[in-house]
């Protein structure tokens, strides 16, 4: 190193110090904000997951025993069988859901069939219900006293068949939405070129349509696989003797109080989830810029045979979706299935069967409301700091990475991790254990990634020079954030709030380990009612949840319409 080099380095360091001294209040606020969120994510996600990992190599008394728990697990035939069962279910569900959703989405995007908006709305139904609902409906349809039991020709609905059908219902909207996006982003000019060259429709389908949508299809498949392997509600209700990983965790922890073994199963469940998360990330990276800004939107031309065929398919699918929901609704009003088919409201008197009946519903409302409000505030600030912050690139990078983790962690695993971390009395945060706070925190973390990415996308569309302009006019960043970014993002803020609310209403997996009698939630009540055989009451409570979700969705729609009307002068197209 020459003397000149040394002085250059010294100068650079001095500049850095001068800049640090000069950064002023604004940057300190930014630093404080990012640091606070990073600390929160570490405390409420990273540390609990570490506690789970630690638990898996300890015995019941907390002594380190290496991989003995794993040895025990893999030597138990019953438990290992669950892995095979889970994979079987996940693979079949993935294939079935993807094929159905692809055809449905194809109908919505590439044909001239009527009622497309209605079909799209119908396809969303399952999102509004807990995953327990389709399972309960299937029992009414195909169970021992089922309405159309004969259709199964002697096969039992309690087991893989039931799990798969209910799972397809529950996963369908998620997969369908990804497929619609994948099929919408296409360039009409490709089809015109193929047409001009006289290409046969089949060849067009396999050389243009499929390759254009392939990333979306892979992404949808990954989502389907993850959701079906990690869902707990469906196999719990309709699984019968067919054990899967998700129910094993529950049995080990809640049934046998074997926490170490629960931790081991949790880690096993984490593997496919993390794996599919990585595939999805990889695919999403490749997907960028598939569509150039010059692309011409595709407008389907009428084609009688194709339109009729897909219209018929969509009707069948809609009948299936509405049928499942309708069955649960119907069953909730029947006095005593199948012996007394008269209608009654008695099953909605939840307090008669469960001391925390209606109160659990109000707990759910409170929890979902808090999750939506607190969640959206953190998500907005977090995404803003990641996207628009100018200093501290390292800390922002760490935060962004942490924000991606919840996507890969199944709810059950997160819930379990919370038990291990927060139930220890020496943890200063342990007072929140068993309260509403831990339910809200857990739910916000559980659904953080999607909310974060949605908000990030919205913020990315805002001119990145606003901060520069603001600084040149000597207006602090937070002022511009409140006066400009928040109003522009209002539709997305509302979207994220609705997403958090509906998910908080319907989720079972994470919170099933964390509720106390005082903070029991409606979806948990459904689970308990079904457990003790009060199936009609379980169906009724499911319907109350659905009604709440629908109400919130409609309110959201009206709010959006109002917002668009009020801001029509500047909101030329909705974000």
């Amino acid at each position, binding site marked *: 190193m020459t003397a000149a080099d040394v002085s*250059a380095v010294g*100068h*650079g360091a001095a*500049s850095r110090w*001068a*800049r640090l001294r*000069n*950064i*002023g209040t*604004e*940057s300190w606020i930014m630093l404080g904000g990012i640091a606070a969120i990073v600390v929160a994510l570490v405390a409420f996600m990273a540390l609990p997951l570490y506690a789970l990992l630690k638990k898996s190599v300890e015995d019941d008394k907390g002594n380190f025993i290496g991989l003995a728990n794993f040895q025990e697990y893999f030597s138990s035939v019953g438990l290992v069988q669950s892995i095979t069962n889970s994979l079987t279910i996940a693979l079949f569900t993935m294939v079935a859901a993807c094929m159905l959703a692809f055809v449905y989405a194809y109908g919505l995007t590439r044909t001239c069939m009527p009622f497309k908006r209605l079909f799209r709305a119908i396809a969303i139904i399952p999102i509004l219900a807990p995953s327990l609902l389709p399972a309960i409906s299937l029992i009414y349809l195909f169970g021992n006293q089922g309405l159309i039991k004969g259709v199964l020709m002697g096969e039992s609905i309690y087991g893989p068949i039931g799990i798969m059908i209910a799972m397809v219902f529950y996963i369908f909207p998620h997969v369908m939405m990804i497929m619609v996006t994948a099929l919408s982003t296409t360039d009409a000019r490709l089809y015109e070129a193929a047409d001009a060259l006289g290409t046969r429709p089949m060849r067009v389908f396999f050389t243009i349509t499929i390759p254009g949508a392939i990333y979306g299809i892979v992404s949808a498949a990954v989502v389907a696989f993850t959701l079906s392997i990690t869902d707990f509600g469906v196999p719990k209700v309709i699984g019968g003797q067919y054990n899967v990983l998700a129910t094993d965790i529950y049995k080990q922890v809640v049934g046998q109080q074997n926490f170490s073994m629960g931790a081991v199963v949790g880690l096993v469940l984490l593997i496919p989830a993390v794996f599919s998360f990585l595939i999805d990330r990889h695919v999403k990276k490749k997907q960028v810029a598939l569509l150039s800004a010059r692309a011409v939107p595709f407008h389907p031309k009428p084609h009688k045979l194709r339109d009729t065929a897909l219209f018929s398919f969509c009707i069948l699918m809609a009948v299936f979706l509405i049928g499942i929901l309708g069955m649960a609704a119907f069953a909730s009003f029947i006095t005593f299935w199948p012996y007394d088919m008269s209608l009654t409201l008695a099953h909605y008197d939840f307090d008669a069967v469960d001391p925390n009946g209606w109160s659990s519903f109000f707990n759910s409302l409170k929890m979902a409301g808090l999750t939506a409000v607190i969640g959206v505030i953190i998500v907005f600030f977090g995404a803003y700091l990641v996207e628009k912050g100018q200093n501290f690139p390292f800390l922002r990078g760490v935060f962004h990475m942490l924000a991606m983790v919840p996507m890969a962690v199944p709810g059950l695993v997160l819930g379990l991790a919370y038990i291990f971390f927060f139930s220890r009395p020496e943890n200063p945060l342990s007072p929140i254990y068993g309260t509403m706070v831990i339910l809200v925190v857990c739910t916000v973390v559980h659904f953080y990634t999607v909310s974060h990415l949605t908000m990030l996308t919205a913020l990315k569309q805002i*001119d990145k*020079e*606003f901060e*520069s*302009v*603001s*600084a*040149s*006019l*000597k*207006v*602090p960043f937070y*002022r*511009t954030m409140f*006066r*400009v970014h928040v*109003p*522009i993002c209002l539709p997305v803020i509302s979207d994220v709030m609705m997403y958090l609310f509906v998910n908080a209403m319907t989720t079972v997996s994470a919170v099933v380990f964390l509720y106390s009698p005082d903070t029991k939630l409606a979806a948990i009540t459904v689970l308990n009612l079904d457990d003790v055989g009060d199936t009609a009451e379980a169906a009724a409570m499911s319907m109350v949840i659905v009604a709440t979700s629908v109400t919130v969705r409609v309110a959201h729609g009206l709010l959006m319409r109002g917002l668009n009307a009020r*801001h029509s*002068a*500047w*909101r*030329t197209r909705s974000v």
Partner: protein
Amino acid sequence: MARKPGAKKSSKRAGERAFLEIRDVTKMFGDFTALEDVTLDIHEGEFVCFLGPSGCGKTTLLRAIAGLDFQTSGRIYQKGRDISDVPPADRDFGIVFQSYALFPNLTVKSNIAYGLVNRKIDRKAVVARVNELLDLVGLTGSDDKYPAALSGGQQQRVALARALATSPGMLLLDEPLSALDAKVRERLRHEMKDLQRSLGITTIMVTHDQEEALSMADRIVVMGDGLIEQIGTPMEIYRNPVSAYVANFIGAMNFLHGKMVRKGHVKVGRMDIAVDGSASEFEKGDDVVVCIRPEDVAVRDASPKRANHYAMAIRDVEFLGSFCRVILEVEGRSDEELTADFSINLMRDFKIERGAKLKIALPRARLQVFRDTGQGPQS
């Protein structure tokens, strides 16, 4: 080497300190050097253009001046104050971006008042100032419109008004006209220049459009690969480019690749070109490139008595409205071509058309000779 003549010119007002002094500014992005030891003085009230192709470092330099992206090393002084490590909020400038960066949810009025409201100026004064600025940029009456209701040109005027509202000491323009269509761009060019002149505000504009730079700037800083290639008035840059790079970037130019055959003479294909003293630094056998602008190719004086006259064949004629661009080739040699711009009169007088023959001359005073580095444009 190529930078020195320009650098000397910039310090012509010796004695007084320049309004903005940029000293050895270097900016690294990882291993990539975006700016290398840039030194430059900008005087009060001056309109300076940073001109260069994308990726040449011109925007990086502007952002360093604004404090939006700090330089890796080097110092910047504004009115003698060292602002090298000062955040943008504590510097004194207004900025306009290519994207306008107008706040879409605020009216024109609120956009312009954005920086004023924060300064605890009383409401009446703010309104008066906003009206004054609206008047200045010719948008009186648009106060309550939202940016979405304005055309691109109008939006850029609002952005300009917003930047000027707080009466900053320096105006920075980052490709302000690039997003507009040709007609609007031309009109706004004049308006902005007029405005700048009447306000006397020191202005730096980044652009890749040479026409914009030539027509607006008092001085142009031509940049390439993170270095300043040349600094000078538009006329200097156009008439006396210091390198083939600058010659190529500004205006149309013929590049004739050849060899020095003896002092003052270049052989380009079969043409023997007599060049001025400007080529005195080259030795026999050096690879050089001879440059001449298309409009400098002469026809009227192309008598055999004068040096550098050649018989050419007309390969193609491109009609460009007020003049014609003519592609000439040395008779019988389709690989030795020359582009010339001729007025319509000249076209008529000499019956210039495709396939005809034509005698032309390359006036010695108009020729420029550079070393042929093998890079850059091929004729």
